[in-house]
């Protein structure tokens, strides 16, 4: 990675969509939309709803499937001078194993994000991420089938995220990605219907930043693993906050909808923000939150 600012999974598609608008080569990495074994159709419409300081989505992992990812998307990305991370999501441990082995040696990938925390699919998804045993099993299965460094993406919607993180650490994950969207609901008070076709969705954006920061801090203290931290990151100050809480890199998702070039702007402002925090580079800030005295 050239720098610690990355595009989050699911909000930057397969990177190609963003390429005409943003110079992706400047960013630290792009995490692609999560793929499943078979192409995913996704959830019924409507799939998004704006909320105060954030949004709900219930895309439901609509994706091209791992086969097209390898055959079409990755080759198309060859021209991009950007670190590319794939994200995989499965309904079963076998799915994760399959996805991992299909991506082993697929080229173009620097790492794998393992999404065990999608709130928008009925089977699998967040249920893995709530369970320490299941998370560990998934990590092991992926590791056995793929030599790329793994970042397990966890949900904060659990009683104690640090225990899930520790289980993932013991199972040998290279790092963590925190946090996925938080399950939520919005209702149309006139029609009495949920705002989303899938009834519930995942909450993201600045509204959830404090929850994400705490998750990063909890997991950093519990595991010391490298963390891709995000959830509501909007400006360079936010990026520094995540670093201080323990994030080695910072992901930008929902904010890119307001400004597709938000991650690039954060990058621009980051050196000044890091200097304000009294450091000479991002590394010195990671986990440097002052909690006593």
């Amino acid at each position, binding site marked *: 990675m050239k720098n610690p600012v990355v595009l989050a999974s699911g909000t930057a598609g397969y990177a190609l969509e963003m390429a005409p608008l943003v110079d992706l080569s400047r960013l630290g990495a792009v995490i692609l939309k999560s793929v499943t074994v078979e192409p995913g*159709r996704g959830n019924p419409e409507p799939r998004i709803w704006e909320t105060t300081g954030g949004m709900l989505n219930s895309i439901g992992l609509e994706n091209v499937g791992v086969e097209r990812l390898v055959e079409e998307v990755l080759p198309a990305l060859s021209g991009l001078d950007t670190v590319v991370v794939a994200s995989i999501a499965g309904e079963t441990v076998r799915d994760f194993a399959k996805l991992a082995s299909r991506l082993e040696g697929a080229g173009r990938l620097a790492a794998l994000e393992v999404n065990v925390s999608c709130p928008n699919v009925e089977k699998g998804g967040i249920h893995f991420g709530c369970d320490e045993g299941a998370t560990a099993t998934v990590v092991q299965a992926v590791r056995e089938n793929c030599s790329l460094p793994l970042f397990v993406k966890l949900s904060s919607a659990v009683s104690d995220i640090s225990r899930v993180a520790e289980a993932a650490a013991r199972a040998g994950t290279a790092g963590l990605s925190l946090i996925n969207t938080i399950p939520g609901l919005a209702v149309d008070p006139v029609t009495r219907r949920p705002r989303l076709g899938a009834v519930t969705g995942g909450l993201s954006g600045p509204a959830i930043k404090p929850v994400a920061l705490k998750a990063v801090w909890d997991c950093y203290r519990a595991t010391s693993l490298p963390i891709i931290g995000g959830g509501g990151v909007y400006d360079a100050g936010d990026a520094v906050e995540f670093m201080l809480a323990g994030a080695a890199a910072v992901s930008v998702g929902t904010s890119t909808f307001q400004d597709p070039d938000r991650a690039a702007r954060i990058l621009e402002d980051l050196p000044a923000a890091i200097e304000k925090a009294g450091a000479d580079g991002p590394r010195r800030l990671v986990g440097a939150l002052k909690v006593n005295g």
Partner: protein
Amino acid sequence: MTETEVATAAALFEATLLGRQDAGATILLEFAAAAGAGPLKAPAPGQFYQVRCDTGKEHLLRRPLSAFGASAGQGGLRLSFMVDVVGWGTRRLSLLEPGDSVGMLGPLGRGFEVAGVRKALLVAGGIGAAPLAYLARELDRSGVTYEFLAGFRTVSGVCPGLDELRGGVSVFTEDGSRGEAGVACDGLPEILRRGFDAAFVCGPQEMMAAAAGLCEGAGIPCQVSLDSRMACGIGACRGCVKEGAGGRSLCVCLEGPVFDSRQVSWKKRTEGSGPALR
């Protein structure tokens, strides 16, 4: 209007409000791309922009607005929009004052396909008249004949500039306060007998479904402009996707908003979704 090829490369730029005109229930906003935005393509009729309505973080999603008019002359790109105030974002836009700057992303999506069309039928409901009025003016420029049926709730909602069009324009209002009393589709069965190369429709879902049915029945290819909530506007998030005919997914922001009516699934739309284009 000097440049009308379908623009493919969307750009992110700031635009300054030049003027506003209260057109009854709707508002007409005219913008100029800020100097320094670089060369920008003009939108094709049916294309839209993602407009940043909030300067803060409370409302993170941009709002999609169809181009109502555009010119890409010496002074750079000028864009106009017709806005129906239905919620927070559109109200915010309606409060802009000349000189205020707004973030734009566009032109986006696929507009109306007019290649080969020599006699067109335009059918609009409510604010759906915005992209069709733009289309009509472009058809005037290129000498294509057309009939334009435009329905509104009441006189105050009537789209400005219809009188200056060269094609045949029939206005309908539900309360009869201007033109004929009724909705645009009322005029369809009769007018369809005159024969058209293509129909272009934009309005509430139910109205488009009805118009599409009639056109298809008459063997006239029909293009409809769909409405959907949007996040990215560029095909990256899959938030705007609707189920089309045969279960196909329609990515409204990228493959649309204009689709061949036969691609669309006209099942009753979920009530939970946003208000239809009116």
